[in-house]
């Protein structure tokens, strides 16, 4: 990470220390003294910097939040991922034919891997390739069927090895147990929520939550 102050016309003025908020603010104060900008509102509106990507209208977009139980350093801020399931993807999560309470089915492993591969805490390495996964399983069981809408519970787990720093060979084992709920009407995009009940990467415990969110559409 490096931060800089540039002059209004884009020329480097100073490297901003980022070791602490006080150092950063001190340097920004110097920059104000140097350039004497006129006080006023931000010239663009602040807003969320992590937003769902545009996706087809019939896609399902999942927002994942993962966080180590530690705080400070890598544990200070949660990590997020946006996972887009195309119609082809989410169709594989649903059973075919009528569904009755008590009926169970296994969720497609390929689609499950697309979600579970992001079940790791904040690490410098963000290689989320699914070939890290050694074992995983998501099972759905219908709890209720009301007016054609199925509510199913999800139980499952993922096991893989994940490296903390990119390029290292010291991948640590990771295991997570998952519970969730999926609600759907036949042929319609499902709503999915998942939460870890227990998850650890090496000796570091962490939690994950996944939920379905609206997304801007590409067409």
């Amino acid at each position: 990470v490096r931060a800089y102050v540039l002059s209004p016309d884009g020329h480097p003025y100073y490297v901003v220390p980022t070791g602490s908020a006080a150092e950063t603010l001190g340097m920004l104060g110097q920059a104000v003294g140097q350039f004497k900008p006129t006080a006023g509102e931000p010239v663009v509106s602040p807003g969320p910097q992590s937003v769902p990507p545009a996706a087809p209208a019939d896609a399902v977009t999942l927002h994942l939040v993962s966080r180590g139980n530690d705080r400070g350093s890598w544990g200070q801020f949660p990590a997020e991922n946006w996972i887009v399931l195309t119609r082809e993807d989410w169709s594989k999560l649903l059973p075919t034919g009528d569904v009755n309470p008590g009926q169970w089915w296994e969720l497609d492993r390929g689609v499950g891997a697309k979600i579970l591969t992001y079940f790791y805490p904040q690490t410098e390495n963000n290689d989320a390739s699914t070939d890290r996964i050694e074992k995983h399983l998501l099972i759905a069981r219908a709890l209720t069927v009301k007016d054609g809408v199925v509510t199913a519970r999800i139980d499952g787990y993922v096991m893989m090895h994940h490296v903390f720093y990119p390029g290292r060979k010291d991948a640590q084992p990771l295991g997570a147990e998952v519970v969730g709920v999926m609600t759907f009407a036949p042929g319609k995009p499902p709503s999915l929520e998942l939460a870890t009940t227990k998850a650890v990467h090496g000796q570091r415990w962490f939690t994950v939550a996944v939920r379905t969110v609206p997304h801007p559409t590409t067409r």
Partner: protein
Amino acid sequence: MSGQPRPPLTVLVAALLLGSVVATSCSLGTISDARVVRWVEQTVAERQAPPEDKRFDEIAWVTDIRTAIELGKEYNRPIFLFTGNGRINTGRC
């Protein structure tokens, strides 16, 4: 694979016990059917980033240097340039 009425929870548990790194006990099946919907809703909500962890969003960022310089010139304001390898906005960095 599908069937009814019994889910293959025993399969899940066996798989975990055979090679689990998730400590010594298994949490699968500990949340009853009666509680699961409420538990998941509540847990997912509780794990969303609180406002104090999203103060980054209170800064008026632009995401490219050309736009920043245009605005800097237009408003005669210095530019704070943040660079990093990764995605600082999602915490995956």
